[in-house]
């Protein structure tokens, strides 16, 4: 096996455990999207074109409220802002690949593939660019393809789930579940607290403006708390 092939399979092996997360999550998106009133083509269109679970759930939640298009887009893209961070942190390692490969790598950039790839690149600085790309595509294979299939299965099954299952609440629960493990530092907790407080206080504003204001203030607070914490640590 060539070193490129073995890099692919190493990536595949490192990405494989995420199947356990991606399959239920995809099923849930299929179910929730269908429950919200999207047809199979629309659910699959979103899953294939956007391929970002959290943003898709956010969009569905707002579309259910008949929010204006611009608000749905602004919220979904705000949720996906972290992808720009991933892109910035991967750039030194794969920024030199051919443009078409970078374009495809960008399409498949998800939390799990980013997380395993960046660890591997930092641990093995001797990897060639070809090996890095092979590893990356290995890591996305067991994540992205099961995502499509699981969403499809969820959308097909979802239409048959009765209302007693309260699946309307699967969206907020999923968001809580995604967000809770992110509370790593005081700065993250402060940002989340400001986000909740401001959005509840301003909930009377139209067009989900409350969310935009809450998010911007929360980001500023998070960044500020991070600076203060770092300074205090510097003095200690």
């Amino acid at each position: 096996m060539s070193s490129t092939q073995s890099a692919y399979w190493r990536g595949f092996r490192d990405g494989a455990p995420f199947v356990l997360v991606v399959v239920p999550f995809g099923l849930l998106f299929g179910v929730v999207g269908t429950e919200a009133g999207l047809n199979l083509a629309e659910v699959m269109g979103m899953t294939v074109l956007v391929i970002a679970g959290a943003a898709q759930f956010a969009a569905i939640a707002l579309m259910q409220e008949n929010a204006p298009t611009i608000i749905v887009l602004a919220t979904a893209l705000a949720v996906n802002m972290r992808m720009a961070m991933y892109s910035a942190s991967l750039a030194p390692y794969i920024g030199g690949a051919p443009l078409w490969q970078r374009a495809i790598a960008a399409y498949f950039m998800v939390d799990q593939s980013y997380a395993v790839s960046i660890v591997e690149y930092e641990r093995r600085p001797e990897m060639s660019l070809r090996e890095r790309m092979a590893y990356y595509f290995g890591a996305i294979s067991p994540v992205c393809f099961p995502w499509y299939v699981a969403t499809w299965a969820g959308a097909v099954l979802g239409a048959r789930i009765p209302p007693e299952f309260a699946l309307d609440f699967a969206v907020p629960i999923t968001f809580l579940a995604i967000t809770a493990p992110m509370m790593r530092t005081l700065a993250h907790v402060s940002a989340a607290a400001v986000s909740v407080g401001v959005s509840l206080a301003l909930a009377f504003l139209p067009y989900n403006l409350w969310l935009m204001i809450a998010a911007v203030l929360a980001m500023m607070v998070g960044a500020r708390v991070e600076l203060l914490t770092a300074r205090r640590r510097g003095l200690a």
Partner: protein
Amino acid sequence: MTLSTTTIWTIIVLMGIGTWLLRFSFIGLIGNRKMPEWALRHLRYTPVAVMPGLIAPLVLWPRATGGETDPARLAAAGAALVIGLWTKNVIAAVFSGMGALYLVQFLTG
């Protein structure tokens, strides 16, 4: 949802393009150059700044009950939050939340 098919597809396509542009941004255009530290510091907090604000009203004033606070949904949110903080496992938190929802709904009839 009362959005038209055209609106739905407009949202889907623009979300797809916008998300791809965010992902492509640095590996595509900036290459190996570095981003200013202040920008990274703000970007780091986008998920925790957006998601809690998005769900807080849905938890307190659920659509399914016509906006009335519901003990089963509060318990569900509490369970998902606690299990998520404790185990750092997204799927475990989802199942605990939905489990708590069904349990409290069953107990309160």
